[in-house]
């Protein structure tokens, strides 16, 4: 491939027109967007771009992380984006490379994570001919992207790149895919990046109406039993601080969604933790009993609302939300405040009266005391149960000075993590909430660690999900990343087994799962590892993991048939929940049905 005449990509980013190949334009655009790390996997249709990458890698301007499966490139970009708050980038080839991305893109889009995906496409003259490794990537990914592009003309490439980052970042974040034909990568054209973005149909930051804020304040000020339901939007808008001020000024308890975990410190007396399907009974009762529910940056997902027509039936609902389309989608609020929480919350705060709501808070404390600590951490000391492991993990990470990031996979362990780990701030937990993608944790942990090599990153995965993406252990080693891995190994696709136990008469079809010897597996990748079978070993092994420089894997061989409680059955109202068995009740092989 003949390289074009060009100016070296100056560090000062000369904004004047430059002559570049399409391939170079990709990297030049990434540099101008502040991207230093990309996650990818090469192949024929993206080869020109990889060839051009050589120069950018050579002088350290861009680092490419070679993934072992393209799904993981998207998850890594996602983990990177969640940990930094900025766009994560992945780059793969056409056809199978691009279709492998889809799960990762859908995962990021569902959770409003900014990701830009670059895919190679067959040359323009072969488009539509079922050429080798051709697939309709724009068609396939359209439903799981905020927006996507097919680039068939080099003249469009710079603007498309700029728009892609703009759309991914601005407003409610999301996924933008840019599919670039191979001949466009090879051709030479004029590169500039000083465009004004002009997208009349894109309204990322709707302006809030002051009247709506006032109406919301009036409702809240009159309330005797107010409750805040805080979602991912608080973290995305970086308004945890304002939320805490509001909560303390007006004495309002807070329930969070899974992605809103840690929006206010979970040790705060007004924090009720997570609500919904596996939320604590008192959190869900609070939702059902409140008279004004202020939902902030959340979308009334079915996992949080349970049966919709019985959700918060006594409450007037106020919905603070950036994405207009989320307002009225599942729940029609009494007052909607559409706009950026970073603007609406500060406008709201001074209009809120100082209150204590003592009676309401006392009621909640009483409900909370019915679920006492013994009930929550129902340890059976002789047997290793997951809640204990998680609580000990929290104790172990609590002591570190480092920034702690916990990345969970999907299943029972994910719910136990959200229940028993105590999150001190938003953004501590990265998890696939909307799509619920098994296999997410390991690659996302890797992406998060790439963004912050000094952070203490724990990947907490089940034996099922871990086996979906464990090939990335090689990537961890190749990148020399100190990711710590906890496998909650219960011999089952545990969450599905739990449903089979409760709703399908305990017929365990397709859920018993064999694992390899994880210590040997880790050894094969030259990763130190340990197995834990007894509660007494947990603390010392976690210590060992923390003392070890570099990665460490722990195979927690936990008791098999333990269930996640409380549980709201799908279709039930959130207060019709299956409570935790009383202390002393032994979950497990006994086959005894819980007391509900």
């Amino acid at each position: 491939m003949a390289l074009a005449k060009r100016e070296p990509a100056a560090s000062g980013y000369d904004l004047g027109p430059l002559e570049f190949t399409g391939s170079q334009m990709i990297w030049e655009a990434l540099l101008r967007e502040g991207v230093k790390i990309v996650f990818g996997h090469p192949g024929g249709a993206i080869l020109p771009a990889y060839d051009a990458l050589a120069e950018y890698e050579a002088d350290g301007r861009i680092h490419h992380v070679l993934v072992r499966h393209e799904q993981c490139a998207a998850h890594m970009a996602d983990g990177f984006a969640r940990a930094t708050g900025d766009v994560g980038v992945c780059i793969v080839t056409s056809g199978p490379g691009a279709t492998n991305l889809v799960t990762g893109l859908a995962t990021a889009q569902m959770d409003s994570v900014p990701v830009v995906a670059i895919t190679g496409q067959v040359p323009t003259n072969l488009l539509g001919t079922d050429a080798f490794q051709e697939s309709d990537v724009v068609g396939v990914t359209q439903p799981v992207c905020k927006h996507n592009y097919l680039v068939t003309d080099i003249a469009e490439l710079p603007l498309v790149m700029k728009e892609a980052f703009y759309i991914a970042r601005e407003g409610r974040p999301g996924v933008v895919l840019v599919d670039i034909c191979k001949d466009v990568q090879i051709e030479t054209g004029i590169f500039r990046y000083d465009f004004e973005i002009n997208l009349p149909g894109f309204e990322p930051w709707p302006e809030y109406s002051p009247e709506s804020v006032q109406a919301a304040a009036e409702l809240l000020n009159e309330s005797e039993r107010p409750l805040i339901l805080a979602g991912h939007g608080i973290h995305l808008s970086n308004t945890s601080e304002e939320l805490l001020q509001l909560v303390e000024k007006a004495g309002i308890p807070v329930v969070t969604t899974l992605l809103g975990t840690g929006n206010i410190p979970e040790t705060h007396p007004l924090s009720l933790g997570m609500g919904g399907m596996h939320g604590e009974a008192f959190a869900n009762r609070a939702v059902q009993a409140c008279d004004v529910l202020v939902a902030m940056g959340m979308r009334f997902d079915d996992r949080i609302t349970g049966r919709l027509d019985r959700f918060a039936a006594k409450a007037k609902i106020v919905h603070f939300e950036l994405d207009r389309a989320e307002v009225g989608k599942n729940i029609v609020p009494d007052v909607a405040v559409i706009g950026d929480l970073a603007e609406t919350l500060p406008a709201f705060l001074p209009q809120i009266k100082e209150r204590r709501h003592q009676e309401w808070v006392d009621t909640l404390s009483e409900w909370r005391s019915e679920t006492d600590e013994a009930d929550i951490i129902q340890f059976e000391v002789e047997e290793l149960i997951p809640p204990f492991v998680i609580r000990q993990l929290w104790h172990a990470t609590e002591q570190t000075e480092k920034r702690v990031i916990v990345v969970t996979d999907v299943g029972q362990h994910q719910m136990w993590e959200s229940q028993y780990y105590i999150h001190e701030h938003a953004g501590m937990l990265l998890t696939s909430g909307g799509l619920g993608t098994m296999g997410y944790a390991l690659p996302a942990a890797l992406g998060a660690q790439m963004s912050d090599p000094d952070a203490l990153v724990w990947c907490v995965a089940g034996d099922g999900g871990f086996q979906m993406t464990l090939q990335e252990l090689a990537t961890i080693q190749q990148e020399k990343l100190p990711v710590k891995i906890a496998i909650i190994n219960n011999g089952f696709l545990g969450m599905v087994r739990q449903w089979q136990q409760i709703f399908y008469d305990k017929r365990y079809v397709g859920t018993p799962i064999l694992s390899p010897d994880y210590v040997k597996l880790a050894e094969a990748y030259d990763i130190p590892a340990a197995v834990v079978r007894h509660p007494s070993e947990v603390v010392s092994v976690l210590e060992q993991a923390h003392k070890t420089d570099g990665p460490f894997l722990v195979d927690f061989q936990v008791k098999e048939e333990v269930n996640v409680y409380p549980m709201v059955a799908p279709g039930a109202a959130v207060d019709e929940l299956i409570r935790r068995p009383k202390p002393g009740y032994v979950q497990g092989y006994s086959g005894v049905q819980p007391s509900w």
Partner: protein
Amino acid sequence: MQYTLVAWMRDKPGVLNRVSGMLRRRNFNIDSLQVSHSETPGISRMTFVVDGDERVADQVVKQLRKVVDVTAVEDITNRLAILRELALIRVRTTPATRGEIMQFAEIYRAQIVDVNAENLVVQAVGTEDKVDSLIELLRPFGIEEMVRTGRVALCRGDERPKRTKPATSIFKAAASLNGSGHGDPE
């Protein structure tokens, strides 16, 4: 009930697919969808007839607005608007029936645009109701082939949609869903 929505979008490859894909994915019930040029070069215009309640219509409007290439969306259901559809209907004829068919066409101010020994083509323009009832009248004679454009709509005089950015007014329960939900033009 039926809602009439008008959307304007950048005339780019795949836009129709983006819009129809979104409507399918979100399980909206669309009775008809019509695409054409608008008065502005580079901007296409779509007219949708949506079957559903107020909340469905509200969601369709909002989800359409989220499609990046869609530049504006307007719910003109409650505006004074000219609603029209064009139909071409090929009806079987015999020497005995031809006259009667032509009379019916005339009553409906439809035109005969093609005549053969065995059939003729009626071109009807009007509201869907009017086209429907003409079709019912013609059906007994034997309709051999038919095509309908689906609804197109244009607001009258002062009722012209303003196509400005939607307002972010407050949202008082379902009753005023239209007010803010649809984002009335400022």
